[in-house]
């Protein structure tokens, strides 16, 4: 009986193995590894899946790739590293994907990306902002600007506006993204000679930040720097103002806090909130306007920067595919991706630098009346 249970399980796995799509010269499989279930990772995963699938649809409809047709294969890793590795193995060996977009979380990337690197399959991340992602190998790219790229600009703007001498920091201690954002913030503040008078932390799922903020209020900093995701940041900003941290104390956020949710959740309290990003929804370019309109039409909601970056990733692949003349040689494709230069994207012109990091001009944004606008100097 034990054996027959085994046989049953094995045949189930086998059935999955045989059901993979047939390869054809004109089909290009693109793995999309995004968490669409399993906790807060799904927030970003869903947006990126949407962005990538929209781009694939557009590119196929435009006929710009001639005989090549992009096939997006989305797999949900539920933010679970073990599953990310399972998916990468299957996408690489079974589906023979030309490129993998994702994964959603940096922790998944650290576990799964080495497999792609070893197999010589390019990976383009659009939400991993932790340091060390692209150090894993020359096949690993990202379109999400790391915090270290956007924060100095934000701080420079804030210095002009608030002339801060002291700062307080609050960040998510159990979140890879926020923990690394915190380190970047701290280093930048210290190098500008701003004294950090209070450092507080919170954990995923927390909703009450009043204890930490009361402590911060007592330290009376000139600026408050938040290392949190959008919904966390929104609540921190709102509770900070409720507790009486005055508007003269500027509040700054991390790149990941840029979301339309911020204004909705924080309300008026978010006015003056300053953040840096590679992309924002009101960015004034025909390409971006077309993207936002198409996204709204397909999904009935606004895109965020994760959706925008995933969308850009697909256009990068399409552009590289054309220059590499196909996907028969993934080394060539990788080289073509690495050579991406001045591609017209929804956040301006996009290039990869020598470290396969995005070389986009970071923008400093300020919240005003429920909308992010470009910071005026």
């Amino acid at each position, binding site marked *: 009986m034990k054996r027959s249970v085994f046989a049953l399980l094995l045949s189930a796995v086998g059935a999955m193995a045989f059901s993979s799509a047939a390869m054809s010269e004109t089909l290009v499989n693109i793995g999309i590894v995004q968490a669409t279930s399993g906790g807060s990772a799904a927030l970003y995963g869903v947006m990126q899946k949407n962005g990538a699938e929209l781009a694939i649809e557009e590119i196929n409809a435009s006929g710009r790739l001639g005989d090549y047709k992009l096939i997006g294969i989305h797999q949900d890793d539920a933010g679970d590293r073990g599953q990310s590795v399972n998916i990468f193995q299957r996408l690489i060996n079974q589906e023979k994907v030309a490129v993998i977009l994702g994964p959603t979380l940096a922790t998944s990337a650290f576990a799964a990306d080495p497999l792609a690197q070893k197999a010589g399959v390019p990976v383009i991340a659009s939400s991993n902002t932790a340091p060390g992602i692209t150090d894993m190998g020359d096949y690993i790219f990202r379109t999400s600007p790391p915090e270290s790229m956007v924060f100095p600009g934000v701080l420079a703007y804030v210095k002009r506006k608030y002339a801060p001498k002291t700062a307080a920091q609050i960040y998510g201690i159990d979140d890879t993204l926020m923990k690394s954002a915190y380190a970047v913030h701290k280093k930048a503040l210290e190098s500008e000679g701003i004294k950090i008078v209070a450092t507080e932390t919170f954990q995923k799922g927390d909703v009450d930040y009043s204890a*930490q903020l009361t402590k911060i209020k007592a330290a009376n900093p000139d600026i408050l720097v938040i290392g949190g995701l959008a919904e966390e940041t929104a609540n921190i900003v709102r509770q900070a103002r409720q507790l009486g941290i005055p508007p003269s104390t500027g509040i700054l956020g991390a790149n990941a806090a840029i979301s339309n949710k911020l204004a909705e959740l924080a*309300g008026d309290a978010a006015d003056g909130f300053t953040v840096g990003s590679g992309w924002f929804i009101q960015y004034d370019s025909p390409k971006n306007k077309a993207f936002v309109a198409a996204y709204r039409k397909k999904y009935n909601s606004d895109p965020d920067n994760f959706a925008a970056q995933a969308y850009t990733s697909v256009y990068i692949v399409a552009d590289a595919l054309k220059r590499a003349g196909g996907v028969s040689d993934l080394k060539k494709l990788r080289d073509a991706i690495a050579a991406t230069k001045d591609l017209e994207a929804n956040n301006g012109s996009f290039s990869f630098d020598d470290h396969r990091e995005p070389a986009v001009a970071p923008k400093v944004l300020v919240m005003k009346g429920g909308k992010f606008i470009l910071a005026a100097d």
Partner: protein
Amino acid sequence: MSTFFQQLVNGISLGSTYAVFAMGCTLIFGVLNIVNMAQGAFFMAGAYFGLEAARLGLPTPLALVVALLGGGLLGMLSELVIFRTLRARGGHRWMGLVASLALARMMVGLAQEIFGTQVQRYPANGLLQISWEIADVRIQLLQVVILVVSLLLMALLAFVLQRSSTGRAIRTVAFSEDVARIVGVPVGRTILATFFLAGALAGAAGMLLGNLFNVVSPFMGEQMLVKGLTVIIIGGLGNVPGAVAGGFMLGLIEVFSVAYVSSSFRDAIGFGLIFFILLVKPNGLFSGFEERRA
């Protein structure tokens, strides 16, 4: 000094939501000697019920009733589908834990499917935005309202348990199922009523917390479940007054460990304390009240 009082306010308002939620968890334990791991999901569902009601334009008190009823019905559903079936089939008590966890998982998946993964908020209520500043301590009207509502819910539960016939039946079943059967208490219906009450309290707590902190998400129940379990240990499993006291205590412990130790060790302090309490008073801090347990 004003910081101390501000933290006191913070802790009490956080603790009130813990207390309301934990009362439900401990009630079920008192009657059936089991932990219903789906309570966290009822909490989340209550927040969404209240949210949808508020969006339909119902006034807040009515929305709260919707959250209460919604949570309560789900609680009854969990008893009818899972726990009653398991009792009838002689399943091990562990099975109830596993099944209620799976039920919670299903509900989180369902909530994601219906409402999406993004965090939502209650419609802004201008009236509740008012806050007073007394000697540099900020108190929001919202916090006061939520504290009052929590206290009312506690009083209501005490009244139901002490004065109503259902309450007497619940206390009898909690004392002994066999005794209850002998004196003619309808055991099945009484257990169902307990699940209703527990679910309703979870649902109400969900709406209160959702309002207080402006957060409604499919995942909000997971952390609350952990807090609820913590509270019922502090208070003693099955001890309703203990859960109330434990709820406020946990709120204050969390806030003051942030204030005077470090926010990074907040949870370690909370759990370390539980560990300690269990070692010195293995039946909870308020085990002296055992005879008053529901």
